[in-house]
């Protein structure tokens, strides 16, 4: 018997067993179909898109099934935050710098009665990026392609057993990792407010190209009573920049707003009838009635 090999296998087994405690299976009424991560004893995270607008689900842990309530969904980064009591201690997050391309990771998820473990590795680890759906992710983490649907929302753990990312399926069979620091940011906002506040200006926009060749957005609608209406933004105004960030499309504005604390006043550079105009607008929370 090769003792080095046995030790290696034992260490891998121990990691898998530890990871199993940090993940759950999620059932939104038709059986357990995808996974979630036990962020802390009372908070879970999972892939937002897989919830399909559910407001409560049943989660399956190593100890059995318990109900969970969905606190918030951030579709732009595909993370949902759920409230429940799992009895599990929760995961510990890896330091962002510790993961590099080529590193082995273990992806853990759960079905109704058993854990699913897949050994994978980080194919690519890169700087912050913007998703197609307007989310800002702190790092690009691409894992081995072809994630099983049941593992979506599950955790990618490093060899120390710490959580690096949540595994989700991307376009063209890619497997993306939502970095743990992105999840951390979202969870702390949601736990602070009890939901996810949406920064809001109240303008509907379309892309335009200015005479000097730069891209900007033109206001095609101002919602009554909105921050933009209070700042006297008018139909036909062109928004060139906001809080010093140039705005080339509606997505840029959405992302710029996400970084501005609610209630703060920011400068906006507009063009109205060809003239430059400076306006100040107070970013408020979108009031969903």
């Amino acid at each position, binding site marked *: 018997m090769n003792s080095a090999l046995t030790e290696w296998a034992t260490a891998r087994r121990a990691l898998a067993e530890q990871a199993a405690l940090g993940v759950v299976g999620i059932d939104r009424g038709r059986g357990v179909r995808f996974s979630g991560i036990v962020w802390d004893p009372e908070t879970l995270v999972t892939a937002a898109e897989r919830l399909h*607008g*559910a407001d409560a689900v049943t989660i399956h842990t190593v100890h059995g099934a318990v109900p969970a309530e969905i606190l918030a969904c951030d579709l*732009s980064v595909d993370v949902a935050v759920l409230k429940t009591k799992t009895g599990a201690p929760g995961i510990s997050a890896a330091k962002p710098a510790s993961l590099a391309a080529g590193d082995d990771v273990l992806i853990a998820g759960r079905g109704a009665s058993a854990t699913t473990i897949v050994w994978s590795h980080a194919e690519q680890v890169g700087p912050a990026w913007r998703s197609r759906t307007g989310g800002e992710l702190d790092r690009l983490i691409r894992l081995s392609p072809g994630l099983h649907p049941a593992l979506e929302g599950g955790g990618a753990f490093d060899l120390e057993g710490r959580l690096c990312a949540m595994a989700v399926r991307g376009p063209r069979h890619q497997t993306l990792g939502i970095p743990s620091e992105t999840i951390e940011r979202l969870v702390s906002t949601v736990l602070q407010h009890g939901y996810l506040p*949406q920064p*809001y200006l109240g*303008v*509907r926009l379309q892309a335009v190209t200015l005479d000097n060749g730069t891209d900007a957005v033109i206001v095609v609608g101002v919602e009554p009573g909105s921050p933009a209406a209070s700042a006297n933004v008018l139909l036909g105004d062109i928004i060139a920049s906001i809080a010093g960030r140039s705005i080339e499309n509606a997505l840029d504005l*959405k992302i710029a707003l996400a970084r501005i604390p609610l209630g703060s006043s920011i400068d906006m550079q507009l063009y109205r009838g060809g003239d430059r105009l400076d306006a100040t607008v107070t970013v408020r929370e*979108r009031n969903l009635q």
Partner: protein
Amino acid sequence: MSAISSKSLVIGIDRPNDVNVEMIVAASNSAVRRTLVELAQRANFEVRAVADDPAALASLLARDRDASVVTGGTVTLARPFLSGARSANAAAVAVLSDRADAEDRLNWSYGGLAVLRAVPAIKRFQAATLATHTGLSVWDPNMRIADDPSGSNESPLSRRERTVLEFTAGGLSTKAIARKLGISPNTVKFHLQAAFEKLGVTTRAEAVMAAIRRGELAV
């Protein structure tokens, strides 16, 4: 299909049970099907069968000649089912989430077809269904011809679809949206599905982004 006297039609609007309308719900999308089944049942019509493709509808109509067809979703989704209903000479109600163009309007102006804007009030749905049984052609005034001078084939979102997307963008659950709007969760899914079709997307996140990019949703 039995002829209905004008008297029984009037009674029928209040108590459609007396008229005994049997319906086949036909749509390829499951969210659309569920909404239509719910609509037919709430209107007190009997749902005899559900068809998820035009071939299934054809074989159901061959067996059940008196059944009315109810279909819906976007014009594109409903079109094959409507032509199926027409070739089987069945009365039909189309519950559509976008506007019909001039050609559709011409093709669909025949006795026995009702074209309604999604999702109609129960009374309106009942009245339209019963009218098709008398051989009338019914057009919802909200289903005006799509007349887009820009020549773009993008159909604008309806007000309801926009509202549903706005709540979706806010991370609200289907049930929470239904509660806020006073409609059923299935109807919320119907509107969401219609918005997906119009925006050419398959996920909630993509729908929100596409609607923002098209200037239909405020930032």
